[in-house]
């Protein structure tokens, strides 16, 4: 009996995840269909400002300290084996291939993704999305597509900014503060990086942008269908789910893309 109940629960959980994944895929498909609609540009510009421009400060700050802490850690680690000349190379590879896209995506999820889920969730609970339906306005096209486009554009740009500031951060800590040779640092940066690293980083950033936007908007859009809460509580729960699921999927996708690229 207990085994039967366990299998029953497992089946339900699997079916739930299959349903959710299917719904998420349809949601993404419908959002992509409206990306090129002629009414979109003003809304895309607005979202570029909210998602992209307003994230610049936080991404730059995190990038700076990530680079600085990398410089610091690597300096002491590589001093032991007498390879401090490799610091620039290790920092740039770590930043461009992994840390840049992943940390940028997580920072944007925390700043803009959570606000997407909350805003759309509130619009759902206050019947604004129903109002769009009654006015014959495609709610996904109106609310999600501009955000998706803005994420696809801004994630790679912010990742590039993160990488650049991170490299400068590594320079500040290892050269200015710890006295490493600046020429060595930039020589390592310049010689270790090839176009595949940069392309790979951008591919990751674009995929993360799609994941974050789709998951956050999806959670907000279907706030009213949550079984674990109603009203304001369900909006809060949707926001939490949006951030947690996005972060987990970013890391999973990072592994998958890395495995495919390498």
């Amino acid at each position, binding site marked *: 009996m207990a085994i039967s109940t366990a299998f029953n629960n497992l089946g339900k959980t699997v079916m739930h995840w299959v349903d959710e994944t299917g719904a998420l895929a349809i949601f993404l498909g419908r959002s992509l269909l409206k990306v090129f609609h002629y009414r979109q540009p003003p809304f895309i510009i607005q979202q570029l400002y909210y998602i992209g421009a307003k994230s610049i400060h936080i991404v730059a700050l995190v990038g700076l300290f990530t680079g600085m802490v990398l410089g610091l850690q690597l300096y002491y680690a590589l001093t032991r084996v007498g390879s401090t000349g490799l610091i620039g190379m290790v920092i740039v590879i770590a930043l461009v291939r992994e840390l840049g896209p992943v940390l940028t995506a997580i920072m944007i999820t925390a700043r803009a993704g959570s606000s997407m889920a909350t805003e759309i969730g509130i619009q759902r609970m206050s019947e604004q999305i129903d109002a769009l339906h009654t006015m014959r*306005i495609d709610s996904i096209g109106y609310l999600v597509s501009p955000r998706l486009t803005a994420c696809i554009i801004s994630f790679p740009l912010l990742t590039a900014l993160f990488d650049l500031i991170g490299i400068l951060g590594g320079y500040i800590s290892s050269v200015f503060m710890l006295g490493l040779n600046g020429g060595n640092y930039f020589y390592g940066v310049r010689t270790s990086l090839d176009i595949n690293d940069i392309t790979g980083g951008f591919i990751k950033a674009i995929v993360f942008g799609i994941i974050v936007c789709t998951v956050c908007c999806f959670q907000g859009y279907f706030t009213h269908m949550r079984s674990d809460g109603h009203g304001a509580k369900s909006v809060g729960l949707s926001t939490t789910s949006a951030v947690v699921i996005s972060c987990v999927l970013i890391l999973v996708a990072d592994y998958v893309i890395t495995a495919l690229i390498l």
Partner: protein
Amino acid sequence: MDTPLIEFRNVVKRLGGRIVLDGIDLQIYEGEVTVLIGKSGSGKSVLLKHIIGLLAPDEGEILFRGKPIGNMNRTEWDKHMSRISYMFQNNALFDSLTVYENIALPLRQTTHLAKKEINKRVMSRAGQTELTGEVSKYPSELSGGMQKRVALARALVTDPEIVLFDEPTTGQDPVRRNAILGMIAEYQKKIGFTAVLISHDIPDVFFIANRVLVLYEGKIVFQGTPQELEGFKHPITDEYIQSIKAFKEKVSGMDSRRHFTGQP
């Protein structure tokens, strides 16, 4: 009688395990103001949301000019929706948009009208709903009554053929309440739209009603003219009459007190 514009045939709707609409049969005729009355929580809004497709019946069917709306293809459904406007009970205004942008939204998103024409229409509706000075404000900066008028202006800005009003006068002072009812009646005569109105403003709303529907315990228990409703014997009419009577007694009680104390 003519073919109804909208007809419900044995519509059943269950929500959260409760039967909200229990075999609804009703007819709404073109060019008329139909008032739907019933106690709070009796399913009036649920019924209205079926007409615009926000909810679908669990059983039964809804016909538009004799054609089941459940069988409409995308083009037919789009055409059906383009005729209807809906004013939500809770207004459903976009709080991140100004009053002007809220009213202009359906015109900007679903028509190809020039900016100048959109501006003309929006300002005209804003003027009629006494909102000219408020167009640049956000809904959160307005009173509940004003927000209601913004929702009303948005519902009418597309010149719809059918307008569904979910308690349009709730939260309005008596002067504005009568003004809104008057405006609905005036526009109905001028434009000739079909109005379906949920209201608790009895008997005021009967002055503009051509037909009255009474929803009671999930069923339509009365369909007819306001005059016919006077002779209708049912627990729901007793409840309404009693409430009106109780209100009158209160008022007359105040009058007698004033008379007794000599206060103005």
